[in-house]
């Protein structure tokens, strides 16, 4: 007779609990009571009623008894019991010892500012708004704990503040608007990681940061701490306009036409707490770039914006809509070829109004705007937006020049010094030091200011967890940003960090400091610079563990010379169909799914997120987890065998299609 145990997450701190034989919750899986039949039903009924304001997501899960101890049958449930398989070190800490005990040190915001960083500067109103939001959330948490709000009602409110309930507990996603932050803000994040979490954070593909272990009872305190550094978690979840993302070299890249950060900030402020668009059919993602090289994946967003200049040199926008990944990946439709700056918000508002009115609300898998665009047909959709746009009152939401300049004036321009474009010391270091040369080749980008360069800090060390950073590393990066980059830092959607404004002459020193700190992995843009979602090690939606597979692949290609020989290659991994790892737009994409309790991976080829955006093609049957590194190697070897001189992986894919790669992976088995 199969038995079951009853499990939940504790409301107050999110800790995974099981129902013990005394009818009380315990955080020790071995103490869970194995039940069946009527006893199980009656226990469930009792706790669902009694503990509705104590435990969340109460349910029974099948378990086997192994040597008298309950072992959940589902892998996900075993992971909930054991903790993330990629962080076995964490399991050694008892639940009671997870969090720092008060009194805590004062947060860095008390003393640390980054006055030169080219970030948007808050005034006291902005700051007070965030403090008020933190206090509002504090009251909402109290109302939840007291039972005034039930979990169904509270959930969207906590999600509006970035607080999820994940596999092991709560997860707080903090917004890093368009991926720009100052060194002092990075220190504040390190402080949160150290004192309210478990010493690390995870940078995401939306240029945000996630903390995996906060307590509900600390959440308002965390938001208050973040507010002091002009940081917040507003709208990092929920069916609203999410963090607007952009090019991580924005405002620095030599080839850029328009600095998109100004418009990203305007969109951020416009969308914050938007009264009309906070309960949309589904989440809504906007990306903007001002460079001809699309590093922001704008064509796979709900709205994608390309900032350009017309013949007169005036800035304006080309608008895409209805792109997206997830279950139904689509490249967006161009809905407007040219939109003057003054109409940006009006036009975006028109799109959202059509979506809010007509987007499906009966099926969350069909609720994104891409489905609406597809079902209505793009021509009809464009007609409706234009109709809505034309009908707006003439004075509503107009971005007049003076408004734009007031916002623009809030961006500090870092005090660049005039430098010669010749940088002999830098050139000498490149020539004489092979390791430095290799790092420079992958990890830098030309800067618009003579004598400056942008440097990428890879968060993909071989054997590491893509996007994860410890609190100590955050502090080190903040110090390096202060020393080398006017205190300014960027987050890339590839889950790396950027010091955008480094003097070329100082680049060797920066590199040496990164080497000393273990942060000089020179693999940016190469096969081991893998985008990966957190997968089943953390996420309650995941069907596979994407991090371990990313680690195995990185291990296989660890040799820097081999990576350099292969050249640019985007490898993206998602642990479920929701595609947080952007596998559809990886040159090689991997999607992990569960097949009768086994993890298997579907392989796609030919995806791209850049200006030639395309959705990858599935090359054949899913591959068993253990066979994935071999399959990737076979694909890469096929590329090396077929490429013409100087041809990149994606170009070979485009030229040859999937056939030679399919043969390389499956040939022997078919």
């Amino acid at each position, binding site marked *: 007779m199969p038995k079951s145990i009853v499990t939940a997450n504790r409301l107050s701190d999110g800790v995974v609990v099981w129902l013990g034989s005394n009818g009380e919750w315990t955080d020790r899986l071995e103490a869970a009571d194995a039940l069946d039949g009527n006893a199980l039903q009656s226990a469930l009924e009792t706790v669902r009623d009694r503990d509705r304001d104590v435990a969340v997501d109460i349910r029974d899960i099948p378990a086997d008894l192994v040597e008298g101890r309950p072992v959940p049958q589902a892998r996900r449930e075993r992971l909930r019991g054991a903790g993330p398989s990629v962080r076995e070190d964490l399991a050694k800490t008892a639940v009671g010892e997870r969090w720092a005990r008060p009194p805590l040190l004062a947060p860095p915001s008390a003393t640390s500012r980054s006055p030169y960083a080219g970030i948007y500067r808050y*005034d006291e*109103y*902005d700051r*007070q*708004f965030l403090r*008020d*939001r933190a*206090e*509002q959330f504090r*009251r*909402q948490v109290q109302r939840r704990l007291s039972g*005034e709000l039930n979990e169904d*009602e509270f959930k*969207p*409110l906590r999600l509006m503040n970035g607080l999820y309930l994940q596999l092991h507990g709560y997860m707080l996603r903090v917004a890093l608007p368009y991926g720009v932050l100052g060194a002092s803000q990075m220190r504040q994040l390190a402080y949160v990681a150290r004192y309210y979490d478990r010493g690390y954070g995870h940078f995401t593909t939306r240029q945000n940061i996630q903390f995996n272990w906060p307590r509900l009872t600390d959440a308002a305190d965390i938001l208050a701490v973040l507010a002091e550094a002009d940081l917040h978690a507003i709208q990092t979840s929920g*069916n609203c306009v999410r963090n607007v993302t952009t090019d991580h070299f924005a405002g620095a890249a030599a080839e850029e036409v328009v600095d998109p950060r100004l418009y990203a900030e*305007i969109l*951020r*402020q*416009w969308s*914050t*707490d*938007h*009264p*009309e*668009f*906070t*309960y*949309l059919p589904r989440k809504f993602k906007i990306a903007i770039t001002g460079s001809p090289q699309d590093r922001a994946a704008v064509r796979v967003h709900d709205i994608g914006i390309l900032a350009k200049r017309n013949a007169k040199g005036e800035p304006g926008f080309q608008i895409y809509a209805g792109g997206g990944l997830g279950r139904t990946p689509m490249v967006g439709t161009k809905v407007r070829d040219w939109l003057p700056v003054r109409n940006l918000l009006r036009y975006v508002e028109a799109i959202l*109004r059509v979506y*809010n*009115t007509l987007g499906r*609300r009966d099926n969350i898998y069909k609720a994104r705007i891409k489905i609406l665009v597809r079902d209505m047909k793009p021509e009809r959709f464009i007609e409706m937006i234009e109709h809505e746009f034309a*009908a*707006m*009152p003439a004075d*509503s*939401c*107009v*971005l007049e020049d003076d*408004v734009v300049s*007031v*916002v623009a004036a*809030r961006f500090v321009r870092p005090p660049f010094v005039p430098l010669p474009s010749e940088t002999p010391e830098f050139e000498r270091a490149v020539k004489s030091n092979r390791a430095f040369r290799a790092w420079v080749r992958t990890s830098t980008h030309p800067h618009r200011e003579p004598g400056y360069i942008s440097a990428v800090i890879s968060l993909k060390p071989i054997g590491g967890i893509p996007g994860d950073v410890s609190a100590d590393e955050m502090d080190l990066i903040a110090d390096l940003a202060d020393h080398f980059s006017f205190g300014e830092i960027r987050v890339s959607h590839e889950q790396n960090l950027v010091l955008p404004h480094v003097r070329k002459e100082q680049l060797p020193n920066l590199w040496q400091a990164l080497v000393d700190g273990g942060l000089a992995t020179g693999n940016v843009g190469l096969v081991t610079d893998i985008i990966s979602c957190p997968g089943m090690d953390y996420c309650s939606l995941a069907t596979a563990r994407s991090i371990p597979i990313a680690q195995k692949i990185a291990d296989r290609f660890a040799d820097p010379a081999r990576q350099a020989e292969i050249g640019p290659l985007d490898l993206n991994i998602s642990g479920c169909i929701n595609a947080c790892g952007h596998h559809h737009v990886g040159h090689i994409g991997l999607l992990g799914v569960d097949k009768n309790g086994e993890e298997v991976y579907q392989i796609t080829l030919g995806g791209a997120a850049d200006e030639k955006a395309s959705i990858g093609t599935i090359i054949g049957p899913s591959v068993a987890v253990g066979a994935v590194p071999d399959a990737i190697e076979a694909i890469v070897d096929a590329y090396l065998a077929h490429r013409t001189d100087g041809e990149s992986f994606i170009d070979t894919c485009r030229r040859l299609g999937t056939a030679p790669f399919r043969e390389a992976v499956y040939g022997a088995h078919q």
Partner: protein
Amino acid sequence: MALINNKARVIEDGWSYPDANGDGAIRPKYVIPLDVLASVGSEIRIDGPIGVFAAAGVTADKILPFLDKLELVVVEFPKFRDGRGFTVARALRDRHGFKGDIRAIGHILPDQLAALVQCGFSTIVTPPEHPPAQWQQGALSASRLLSGGPLLQRLIGRRAAAPANEEERS
């Protein structure tokens, strides 16, 4: 179910609403379901104020033919997560200049007061599980959040511009 105004003060409700079957004779101060109103046509004549019930999913353009005769539009929220009603109110106020009373009814939360008011709602039928006292708590924080906000919102504003929004109904 108590009626409150945009400051969360309880006010008297002189209107009657369609019952679960949606029927009821057309009479003054009765909120007429839109489809009933539509079947009568825009030539409707009633001796007294007319209100309409816009069930979830009804769009503003469907109410338009009757707008100049209406004193009240009641917008239904089937679930507080269903935000279509915000766009209905916004369209009536901003685009069509409706000056009458726009009332929210259904499953809505005190936490949504600020958004409702900004979109042009002037009164709210509070659901039984969230009585007026909870909304008054919410009103305090809403007024704080509305008075400040990010720079851009202070510069260009975005509250639905209508007299009904500025004045307080009693």
